[in-house]
């Protein structure tokens, strides 16, 4: 049996005695007999480290790692520089608690302050929080920031990630807010419908840039439409795309949110990821969760603390805007290190390569018989249609170690290309698709 208890059996007995107990049972006299387990747990016997390693490695070995990935839909395969991985593995960052004791937590607090700064630069917003669980819960928290007694309807584009829509719906079930989808037309939000659906009850409208289908939305026009109706605009977005595309801040968003996973966080079968949230000067005091602020110490030196805590659950209890306590701090540090390593030029180049390669691949697939479903500009994802069943195409690609796009249905596939996809592997994928089409 493995154990992490340093004290030997003898020491434990001595300690019991010193503390005034005869046996371990004496420690638990307050637990009534009728609720005691009084049997051994039905678990495997404990194992030494090497046996644990073998068992877990065996499970990992039963998962398939794809060499080439053309699938995104909310989780994106990007290159993670070695130094980023190293920063995120630093023992103290990994094992520390939430930085309540600021004097011995300056390293984490400053890292988060740097993260907040870079998120503001990326989104074009005034202030960022220290992170929430993921992009979907960030969208849900942002919607909650915008609602009040009079405005309890949340509009969301039908072209957003369906996973995010699901989470918005669940949070609305809790809050009693009404969630209404705004239809899409040609793969983007229908602006005419948006205008018609806005009313005095609408708190906000949520849209993603690029949207679920990879399409570039006209967020600026949406901001005008939404603000005319007295509602807020919550702009979701891919952080890599933000290095290139018009930012939420420039478009007039009131709150910007997104899935931070593309910023140096591995795919990890869906988590841990990172929800980023930033807001305007008018809205930032409604942001949920931790925020790090600059201040000075008793000697006048610059330092950092968790601040504006009067918004939070441990002070406000049931009156708090959110219940969030633990967030994704280590992922935020990782994202900050990633942005620092890439720098502005590196991040722009990543975005440009995603864009260029996705467009190259899309044209190639078109010649192989997979035509694009929607018109208009797209970033690094796009939807194709074909007479060949989606599953046939994807199965053939899988046989060659390629994870193809996400099947939306029998004829449509959502593809994703990042800087990691080389011209050779795109050409190979196209050749395989042509084979399926030809057979």
């Amino acid at each position, binding site marked *: 049996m493995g154990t992490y208890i340093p004290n030997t059996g003898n020491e434990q007995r001595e300690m019991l005695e010193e503390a005034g107990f005869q046996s371990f049972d004496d420690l638990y006299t307050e637990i009534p007999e009728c609720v005691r387990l009084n049997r051994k747990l039905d678990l495997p016997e404990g194992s030494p480290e090497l046996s644990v390693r073998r068992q877990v490695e065996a499970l990992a070995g039963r998962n398939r790692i794809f060499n080439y990935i053309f699938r995104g839909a909310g989780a994106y395969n990007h290159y993670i520089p070695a130094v980023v991985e190293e920063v995120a593995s630093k023992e103290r960052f990994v094992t520390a608690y939430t930085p309540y004791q600021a004097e011995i937590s300056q390293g984490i607090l400053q890292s988060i302050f740097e993260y907040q700064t870079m998120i503001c630069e990326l989104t074009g917003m005034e202030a960022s929080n220290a992170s929430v669980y993921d992009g979907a819960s960030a969208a849900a928290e942002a919607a909650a920031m915008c609602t009040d007694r009079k405005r309890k309807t949340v509009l969301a584009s039908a072209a957003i990630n369906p996973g995010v829509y699901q989470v918005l719906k669940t949070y609305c079930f809790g809050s009693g807010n009404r969630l209404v989808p705004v239809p899409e037309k040609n793969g983007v939000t229908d602006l005419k419908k948006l205008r018609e659906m806005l009313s005095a009850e609408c708190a906000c409208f949520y849209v993603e840039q690029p949207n679920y289908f990879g399409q570039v939305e006209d967020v600026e026009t949406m901001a005008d439409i939404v603000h005319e109706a007295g509602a807020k605009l919550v702009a979701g977005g891919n952080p890599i795309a933000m290095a290139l595309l018009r930012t939420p801040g420039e478009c007039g968003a009131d709150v910007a949110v997104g899935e931070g996973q593309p910023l140096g966080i591995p795919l990890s079968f869906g988590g841990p990821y990172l929800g980023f949230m930033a807001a305007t000067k008018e809205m930032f005091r409604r942001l949920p969760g931790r925020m790090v602020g600059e201040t000075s110490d008793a000697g006048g030196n610059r330092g950092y603390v968790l601040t504006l805590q009067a918004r939070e659950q441990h002070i406000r209890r049931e009156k708090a805007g959110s219940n969030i306590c633990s967030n994704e701090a280590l992922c935020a540090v990782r994202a900050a290190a990633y942005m620092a390593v890439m720098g502005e030029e590196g991040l722009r180049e990543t975005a440009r390569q995603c864009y260029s390669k996705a467009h190259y691949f899309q044209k190639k697939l078109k010649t192989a018989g997979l035509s694009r479903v929607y018109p208009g500009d797209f970033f690094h994802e796009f939807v194709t249609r074909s007479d060949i069943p989606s599953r046939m195409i994807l199965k053939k690609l899988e046989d060659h170690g390629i994870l193809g796009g996400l099947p939306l249905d029998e004829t449509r596939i959502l593809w994703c290309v990042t800087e990691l996809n080389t*011209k050779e592997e795109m050409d190979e994928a196209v050749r395989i698709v042509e084979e399926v089409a030809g057979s």
Partner: protein
Amino acid sequence: MKLLFELGTSGRHCDILPPCDVPEMSPECLRKKELRLPHLSETEISRHYTELEKQVYGVNDGFYPLGSCTMKYNPKINEAMAALPGFAKLHPLQPDYTVQGALELLRRTEKYLCEITGMDAMNFQPAAGAHGEFTGLLMIRAFHQKNGEKNRTKIIVPDSAHGTNPASAAMAGYTVVSVPSGEDGCVDLEKLKEAVGEDTAGLMLTNPNTVGLFDKNILEITRIIHDAGGLCYYDGANLNAVMGITRPGDMGFDIIHLNLHKTFSAPHGGGGPGSGPVGCKKDLAEFLPGPVTEEKEDGSSGFAVPESSIGAVRSFYGNFLVIVKAFAYLLTLGADGIPEAARNAVLNANYLKKKLEEFCPMAYPGTCMHEFVMTMKDLKDRTGVAALDIAKGLLDNGIHPPTMYFPLIVREALMVEPTETESRETLDEAAEGFRALYQRALENPDEIHEAPVKTPVRRLDEVRAARKPVLRYFYD
């Protein structure tokens, strides 16, 4: 220390990506304001973070008795297992047949945790404890709705509860009814009986409770709630004391959450990621968030959404890599190691409590579970040295302070949770360090008001930070 933005100079960079191997293109809707990020060489970035790390107190820097946070040692094998490419490189939307190992890991972890808690089903989607609470409360709401009992609008929460409890209840659309604790720190049964009624949706409780005591009336408490038609929610924050000894399922709880980043040894990451799986009894499994794992007809594993699911509370399946760490921990400790950890957590707490109560008043006398609450009220009355000052004084002694000012029902509270992974020597040294500090506080209180003096920064001005918030760096 300088910020990333104050280092480097224009032109410095890390060379990461090869040139684009396809014709370069550019979108139309470009950002107008140039992106501004640091201009740094790899040496500078790498050293920056090494410097920052020195200004963090991690679990291996010493004693970390942060009450209600269960800061036990974070085993290295767990980290190694979570970093395996067979987990870290999996796309969440790969076909089921390519992720059978990951699915089996989830199913086995679910099975083990159900056995430890006395639950029948579990979902790993919640990313932290508070997220689990919110999820569990939505399940309570869905349950009552399905039974046509929309009038059940109130959640009962003891006044000793963690702030997330009432906050989660409010987010789930409930009105919070706070019940006062008795003098012994446990639920006041009479007050509880007065509080329940036809509008009771449920109760949220930790047991052991937040003052470190096992509420021996637990069966009576859960019965009162059930008789009123409510459900009982167990906040798993304090499970470490009783794993393998007693189970929330056997105490009458219907829904629970666990903190894998506390009880099951996953690290806290300076504030996250955590993992807050939600478990429930069979009758409530239909309301779990989706997707949950299932066994298919051919014996393979897949995902399914429960029949009356409350929906998803996050993308995909939760903080998967954190679950891998908890799984490795469960395999290591196994059937005997789990209760052994609980027993030693309780032993260490009582051993330290015994040493400290020689000079420092305890909020509640007698045997504690895995943690106990000291009160600095007397000290403050006599010398003006508050719990905060003592905490800051401990920083100079290389000890992470206990949790301050929690629970709210104890004045000048310091809550101590040593955990089972500390040796006797560490506890002895901590007790002596604390005794010396307490003595100093009595003799020379002004000195303690100045603490800490040995840390990278001195006491920070939190009022200024909140009054004029500076939440980012501004380039000139």
